[in-house]
């Protein structure tokens, strides 16, 4: 088990493209960290640098107390689970799981015992003699997990391991992976572009955008105090409402409506962020929202409307009745985030 430390780690591809801008952070021993961000933001590049599959252009990477910049992937004491499982198609499940151990010249009986143990943990015992082509997607993913587990690594790396599974299986595997990680207590870095996976699995989330780390924090921090408008709009479905507003003498206004007040020493234009679920219809509400569409989602409903000419979404309970046209809406306490009008950074 180990902590991971990045010190100004940067990646420039041979074609000159800087996929990861200098990044520094620390992952504690046993922590489950999720790297999340839109496609092409450099998540995989970051993970692959930690795995050793991609050279680190600049900076220092430590796993445990050892600087591993130049260490071969096989010697970094890591295990990786790939998006497409990357199982060896010609080997049985047993051989797939044991292959890494065999290469470490571990004796046969020990390998067999470890494979059995991993297979039991993952409910794979009855499939040990099958080839990967004879397994379902979820089972293949489990084999890939097994291959990672048997090596007793000090660090697990996952690159979108669930994105090839259907929604139901994904939910199930998500819980299984998280539970397994808890049980084994192995430090893990998990890449995904699915913010639900990030929210549910992570101890801490690293949100990336365009090669830059936008925010590092617990799921609650990232969700409730997004560090930038990018994080605000990326995390959460539906995303946070971002409205053009201004601050005058501590009063936050959107159009002519006062949506709250602030103790921050700002005046002038700002971006106002409000989560859809922090809005609720209320007779005494200070906002007037012009409702245009109501989306029925079963457990709740999404109300799309306008305030001061800007689009806004509100999430309401399935039993809350609502009419068309302008309705009064209240904002929950402390639910307003302010962002710099230009840079998008949290104020």
């Amino acid at each position, binding site marked *: 088990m180990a902590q991971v430390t990045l010190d100004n780690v940067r990646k420039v591809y041979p074609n000159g493209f800087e996929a990861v801008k200098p990044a520094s952070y620390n992952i504690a021993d046993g922590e489950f960290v999720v790297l999340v961000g839109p496609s092409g933001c450099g998540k995989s590049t970051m993970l692959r640098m930690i*795995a050793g*599959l991609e050279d680190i252009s600049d900076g220092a990477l430590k796993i445990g107390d050892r600087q591993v910049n130049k260490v071969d*992937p096989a010697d970094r004491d890591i295990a990786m689970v*790939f998006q497409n499982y990357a199982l060896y198609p010609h080997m049985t499940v047993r051989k797939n799981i044991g*292959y890494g151990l065999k290469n470490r010249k571990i004796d046969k009986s020990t390998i067999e015992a470890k494979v059995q143990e991993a297979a039991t943990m993952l409910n794979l015992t009855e499939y040990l003699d099958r080839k990967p082509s004879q397994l379902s997607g979820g089972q293949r993913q489990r084999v890939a997990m097994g291959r990672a587990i048997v090596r007793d690594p000090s660090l697990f790396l996952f690159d979108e391991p669930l994105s090839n599974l259907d929604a139901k299986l994904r939910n199930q595997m998500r819980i299984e992976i998280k539970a397994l990680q808890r049980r084994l207590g192995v430090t893990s870095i998990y890449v995904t572009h699915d913010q639900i996976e990030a929210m549910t699995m992570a101890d801490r989330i690293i949100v990336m955008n365009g090669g830059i780390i936008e925010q590092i924090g617990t799921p609650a921090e990232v969700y409730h105090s997004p560090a930038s408008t990018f994080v605000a709009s990326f995390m959460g479905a539906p995303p946070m409402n971002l409205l053009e507003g201004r601050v005058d003498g501590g009063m936050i206004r959107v159009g002519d409506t006062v949506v709250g007040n602030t103790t921050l020493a700002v005046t002038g234009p700002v971006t106002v962020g409000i989560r859809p679920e922090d809005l609720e219809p209320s007779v005494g509400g200070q906002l007037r929202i012009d409702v245009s569409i109501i989306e029925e989602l079963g457990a709740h409903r999404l109300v799309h409307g306008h305030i001061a000419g800007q689009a806004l979404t509100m999430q309401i309970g399935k039993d809350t009745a609502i009419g068309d046209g302008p309705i009064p809406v209240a904002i929950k306490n402390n639910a307003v985030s302010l962002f710099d009008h230009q840079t998008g950074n949290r104020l």
Partner: protein
Amino acid sequence: MKRIKLETILDHTVLIIGSLIMILPIVMLLQMASTPDIETIKNGPGLVFGDQIPVNFEKAMFQADGFSGANTGVRMLYNSMILGFGFAFGKIIVGMMAAYAIVYFRLPFATMAFWIIFTTLLLPLEVRILPSYEIVQKLGMLNTYQGLIIPLIASATATFFFRQFFRSVPEELVEAARIDGAGPIKFFIDILVPLSRTMIAAMFIIMFVYGWNQYLWPTMITTEEDMFTLVRGIKQITQSIDNTNVPEYGRANLLAIIAILPPVLIVIFFQSWFVKGLTESDK
């Protein structure tokens, strides 16, 4: 009653006619191999099968017609086998290794190296046969198996096919193997070779038949009778027609049949692999 489609009848007619055309020469061979040579001379190829097969087989396999008595059918069969297998294995091994180097290692000029190898497809053996002969001769490899096989062992075809195949192997598999601690040699032997087995089977068929059917090259490289190959030996028998009273058609034809058999067996044997490889979707 199940109605047979016109289309099916048409398909089968074409196929049956095709196979008849393919089989006819072989039936002719059999017929002449079973008929006494005198009758073949008098009547030409006929429709009646004779009883001479055992006699001709005996002559074809165990009788030599050179000075040294070394070029019996058995000996020539043996030589051909060595040539065929040597060609097939050699070309597959060299081709795979070349493709491995080109695809998986960041060699300088790898792409150029590949295209240079590729252009040699435009230069078949016949074009460069004199320099090739000279080199073999200077190396003192005339009348040896090495001389027969090694100069032709580099194969642009095999390199090309293996390159295409290796490029289709998912990158993640390579990376998984790296993390699993498989070095370049282990990866090649443990992963790439087993994955390529259908490709190897296909190459084996092609290269074995290619080697087996070589005529010009063995004729140049081997002058000693104990090095003759079957394909060349058949020619030898028909050439000695001048000297004998009766040309030994039966013997030559029987030898031709024997010469057909190994490639046919190879194809049949590897075909099942081939089909299995195509239908069993591994990747």
